[in-house]
């Protein structure tokens, strides 16, 4: 059914869409195809492709560093996605409850969390590098030291460095999930809560039986967006650890970046970029299908 429009029948959409579609084709669609072509070539950053070859793809897949990079990526992404959504949801619940009860300071809290969100990724990495400094006067370690704890090897221990990267990533990124969940929570009809209160439901029951099920749609969309975002970003890690110690925090996006722009291996980097792209799309699809199906069964 057509929606009432000011000038009915006189509405071909294509001319309106053209500027945006042309831009996206030029800067996204064609480059993605070109990455595919480059992956199956022998190009380097300083020398264009001369032949079609599968050598770069084979070299990338047999690179002994790749399994470790993929493992780090999986661990970092999984931990970040859980932390980002958990913290984001907790803050959203807190603020919505505070607002319902008319508590003061909730807007200030929201503003503070959002302020971390607009900190540039590079600055985020540098700020946390300063906090995690392992010198005796470093921010967190001197604080721990004053109560007789630590020092913690925040950035020099391979496992701890990954934890530190997740903490920094959560600090900056939680606001996005908070906004998504905050919007979803405010859209829930308060009548439902009043009914639950009349029935004498306990707060925990209300959370698990009413609020969380109603948030399923928001969790689904947010999971996809946050997972892909986490997979694709590496500027905070670049500034925080540079991928180290060793390769302990070198995620796939950073590995790809290093391959192209430091090793100047355009073909190999393109193969990795395709892997990154395919992984992002596959994860988005898998999350959509699995979480979406559970959504329908409920």
């Amino acid at each position: 059914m057509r929606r009432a429009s000011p000038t009915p029948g006189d509405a071909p959409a294509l001319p309106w869409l053209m500027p945006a579609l042309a831009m996206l084709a030029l800067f996204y669609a064609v480059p993605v195809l070109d990455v595919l072509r480059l992956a199956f070539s022998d190009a380097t950053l300083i020398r264009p492709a001369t032949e079609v070859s599968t050598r770069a793809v084979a070299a990338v897949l047999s690179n002994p560093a790749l399994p470790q990079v993929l493992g780090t990526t999986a661990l970092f992404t999984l931990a970040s996605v859980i932390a980002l959504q958990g913290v984001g949801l907790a803050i959203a619940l807190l603020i919505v409850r505070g607002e319902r009860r008319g508590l003061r300071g909730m807007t200030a809290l929201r503003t503070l969390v959002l302020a971390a969100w607009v900190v540039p990724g590079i600055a985020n990495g540098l700020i946390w590098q300063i906090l995690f400094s392992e010198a005796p006067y470093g921010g967190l370690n001197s604080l721990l030291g004053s109560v007789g704890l630590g020092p913690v090897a925040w950035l020099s221990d391979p496992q701890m460095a990954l934890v530190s990267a997740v903490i920094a990533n959560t600090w900056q990124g939680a606001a996005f999930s908070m906004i998504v969940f905050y919007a979803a929570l405010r859209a829930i009809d308060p009548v439902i809560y009043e009914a639950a209160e009349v029935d004498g439901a306990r707060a925990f029951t209300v959370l698990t039986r009413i609020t969380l099920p109603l948030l399923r749609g928001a969790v689904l969309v947010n999971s996809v967006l946050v997972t892909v975002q986490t997979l694709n970003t590496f500027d905070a890690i670049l500034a925080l650890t540079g991928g180290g110690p060793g390769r302990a925090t070198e995620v796939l996006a950073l590995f790809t970046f290093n391959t192209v722009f430091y090793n100047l291996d355009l073909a190999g980097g393109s193969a990795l970029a395709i892997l990154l792209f395919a992984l992002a799309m596959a994860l988005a699809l898998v999350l959509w299908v699995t979480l979406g199906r559970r959504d329908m069964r409920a």
Partner: protein
Amino acid sequence: MTGRAGDALTYMGAALVAVFFAAPFVWLLSLSLRTPAEVYLGASRLIPEAPTWGNFATILRDPAFAIYLWNGVKLAASGAALAVVLAVPAGYACSRIDFRAKPAVMLGILAVQMVSPLVILIPLYAWIDRIGLLDTDLAVIAVYGAIGLPLSVWLLKASFDAIPIEIEEVAAIDGASRAQILTRITLPLAAPGLASAFILTMIMNWSQFLVPFILLESDANWPISVAIFNFAGSTSASTTQILAAACIVAVIPAVAVFVALQRIIVSALIDGAVKG
């Protein structure tokens, strides 16, 4: 759990959140106001005994830093303007015109956002090099225009949706064309949506590191995000307080703009989140 006990728990949770999110800012500020001697006192001297603006003076007196800041603003604003201008007709069509491919177009635009800039920059670097635009503002602005486009289309669609269609119908009866309706009536009414799309994409661009880092080679063209990364590489433990001041200078503009305008930005984001 209603009443006072619940409120107390809410405040405790809020305090915990506030400490985690404020601590990095507080520590950064504390360091940036210290003399080198006080830096070595660590957390025991959170409020410097002899606070100094010297570190900020060092940063701001450096003419290169002013250039980096200006480059950051220039690139971020031009890129955001390009994205919003290109997004207006598409957002309008998605809001007001019925066409069969609309769900596919909307979803496709969202899917584009899932492609890492890193993936597209690999070929774009080679192309831009070939047409001789490497190390120019134009190259960065064009890429920003594309990267900011998906979010802008979604935000603008949501803000057009919020404008009653009846207003446009009245204008159509008076004989206005669709283009006239858009420019004279809908766009002025959608000003808050346009503003929040512009500001959000501008903040995104301000934070961008990868695009300018790869496309700009000469120091004089760098925005602040690239400059502080290189600056950090040249600092040592004895100049942490200066790096802290530099980080604050890089962070403050985006945070200040965001906090000042957060009412319209947050409501635009919430509208987008609810409808998206």
